[in-house]
């Protein structure tokens, strides 16, 4: 199985698949205007409306910042606190559907037709899964979240259980261990089966309807079994525009926050106070990330995104191996299994949607995460779909759901486990206590943990590089996705369009960072999680219907 398989002359028949019979032709609604010397090939009206709506939103947010921020933040609060039960139930359904498909005969269906062969090696495929959807979050929350749950003084600990550290003093050793297990179980719960199931459902649906059914690679195609020919009209336009909207704002706000985090990290390493609040530094970082993303998209999927993803996976592997080796090695190995056990035994308590008294945790963390993952799912799902041709459905779910869950668990055990260990050893003296509990500076939590290990200057620099490159890979894979959606499912649209989206996204991030409004728009992007969750539940039905029609 080599990366070059896509370059071989076409194999004779790709094998049986169930092509949907529709008169719609990919790109039939596209227009090809000439912009100066550049020819475009864009979907009418998805491209124009998406672009206009995004510009309008940015302007409105900037002009009426003080008025809209409370509205959007209240909206996010309303969505996560009133519909937490809905998000939790939806999340559970996604996991059940994935596992159901995995063990059923539907798992034998092959993406791309019965005889299709994979385009990417396992290594390249994996690297891209993490680089697009989760890498950046793992960097940010790997230390923060377990430490937070272990000692939060704000009353939002998982399942309202006892804390390990109360008022700056450790409780008795047995309770400390129980608190540690709960903290790790809750963290792995947020980064394990549920988020990957959301990504997997979207990705599998997109891949199935494009590669097997012959519909354009765009979000609306999933809903063909439900809406029929109407998906080519306004029903589909609205779905696609929503997907573009969620992707661009999700990316731009993350880029804005991420630049501040990277700036804070650089300030920490160089010993410059307040670099995290310095807008100029952050804007320069956005500029740098955008330029790198631009180079990457111009080098294409294989020469750009895949290479960078592999580079990052190796670098992340080195950082993790280092922390395991210089940290409490044996403790971490033993904790990995104990954490998986804790995840398994608390799984039902954590995913139970009703009759719980841990509102702060369930609404403030779980429902927020679920809304966030779902609002990112069109983007990550579409990117995963694009690189997954040739895998069987069973292989796909194993590699997109089960193995990433294990990798997340290892990562969280390493970074969170080491950080909790530092807190158990030095309580309030530890750096992570200072950044997470004492004064809440979440972007420095990882650097605080690394500062108490040897070679802190080197590991912190590696961490900063990782953060930046994960943003580059998110930014360029996101731009490829937006370009495809706004070109009506064409992945071979003119290059100038990708350049436009990468630049546009960097611009939106920079403008929001300078003018304010990142918080408001992030709240807005998260709020799109609610309608998308409903849409995705419909998508599950379409997916199962579509899989049943495939030859197995």
């Amino acid at each position, binding site marked *: 199985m080599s990366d070059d398989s896509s*370059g071989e002359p076409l194999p004779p*028949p*790709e094998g049986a698949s169930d092509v949907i019979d529709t008169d719609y032709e990919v790109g039939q609604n596209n227009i090809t205007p000439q912009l100066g010397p550049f020819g475009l090939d864009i979907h009418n009206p998805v491209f124009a409306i998406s672009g206009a709506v995004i510009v309008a939103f940015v302007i409105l947010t900037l002009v009426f910042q003080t008025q809209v921020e409370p509205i959007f933040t209240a909206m996010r609060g309303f969505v996560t606190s009133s519909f937490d039960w809905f998000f939790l139930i939806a999340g559970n359904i996604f996991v059940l559907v994935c596992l159901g498909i995995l063990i059923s005969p539907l798992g034998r269906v092959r993406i791309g037709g019965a005889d299709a062969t994979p385009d990417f090696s396992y290594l390249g495929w994996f690297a891209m899964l993490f680089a697009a959807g989760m890498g950046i979050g793992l960097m940010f929350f790997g230390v923060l979240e377990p430490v937070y749950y272990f000692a939060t003084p704000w009353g939002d600990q998982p399942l309202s259980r006892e804390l390990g550290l109360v008022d700056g003093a450790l409780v008795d050793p047995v309770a400390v261990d129980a608190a540690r297990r709960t903290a790790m179980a809750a963290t792995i719960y947020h980064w394990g089966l549920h988020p990957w199931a959301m990504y997997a459902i979207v990705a599998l649906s997109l891949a199935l309807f494009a590669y097997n059914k012959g519909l354009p690679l765009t979000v609306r195609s999933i809903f063909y079994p439900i809406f029929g020919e109407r998906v080519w009209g306004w029903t589909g336009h609205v779905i696609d525009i929503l997907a573009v909207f969620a992707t661009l704002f999700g990316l731009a706000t993350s880029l804005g926050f991420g630049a501040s985090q990277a700036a804070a990290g650089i300030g920490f390493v160089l010993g410059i106070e307040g670099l995290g609040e310095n807008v100029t530094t952050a804007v320069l970082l956005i500029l740098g990330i955008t330029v790198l993303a631009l180079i990457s998209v111009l080098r294409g999927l294989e020469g750009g995104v895949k290479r960078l993803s592999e580079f990052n996976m190796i670098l992340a592997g080195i950082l993790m191996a280092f922390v395991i080796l210089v940290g409490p090695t044996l403790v971490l190995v033993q904790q990995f299994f104990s954490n998986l056990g804790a995840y398994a035994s608390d799984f039902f308590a954590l995913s139970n949607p009703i009759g719980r008294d841990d509102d702060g945790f369930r609404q403030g963390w779980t429902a927020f995460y679920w809304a966030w993952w779902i609002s990112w799912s069109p983007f990550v799902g579409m990117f995963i779909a694009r690189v997954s041709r040739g895998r069987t459905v069973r292989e796909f779910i194993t590699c997109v759901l089960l193995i990433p869950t294990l990798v997340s668990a290892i990562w969280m055990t390493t970074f969170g486990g080491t950080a909790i260990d530092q807190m158990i050893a030095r309580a309030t003296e530890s750096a992570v206590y200072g950044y997470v509990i004492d004064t809440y500076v979440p972007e420095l939590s990882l650097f605080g943990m690394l500062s108490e290990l040897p070679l802190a200057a080197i590991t912190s620099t590696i961490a900063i590089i990782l953060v930046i490159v994960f943003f580059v890979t998110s930014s360029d894979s996101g731009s490829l996705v937006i370009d495809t959606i706004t070109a009506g499912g064409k992945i071979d649209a003119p290059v100038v369009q990708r350049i436009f989206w990468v630049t546009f996204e960097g611009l939106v991030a920079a403008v929001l960072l300078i003018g304010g409004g990142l918080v408001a728009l992030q709240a807005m992007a998260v709020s799109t999680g609610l309608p998308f969750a409903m849409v995705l539940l419909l998508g599950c039905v379409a997916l199962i219907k579509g899989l049943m029609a495939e030859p197995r």
Partner: protein
Amino acid sequence: MYSNIVVPVDLAHPDPLDKALATATDLARHYGATLTYVSVTAETPTAVAHNPREFGEKLAAFARKRSEADGVAIDTKAYTATDPTIDVDRYLLRAAEDTNADLVVVASHKPGLADYFWGSHGGKLAGHAPMSVFVVR
């Protein structure tokens, strides 16, 4: 002089190809060379075909039609790419090597301002291919 002639074909925009195809046919007839149409497609459904297999069939049908009209036998070879926008040049070069081509006849547009930013496929091929390249404008 030439024994294997290769012509890159874009099935989505076949009209501007006419001149290059006619040139290739004439050269093949003149030198008694074999003629092969090569093409690169996306793996996703495109305006041309629902999947790569259908694309291969359409390319063969396109060649058959030309062949019946001109009386010169034409082979075809289709390639799939994960990111055709960027990788098409690389695959065309590989196609030329795979078929042991000693001449590539490629249609290209007149160079314009945009070519200063990224060049035409014909220009790229001529710049990198080890064999002769005939750029038809």
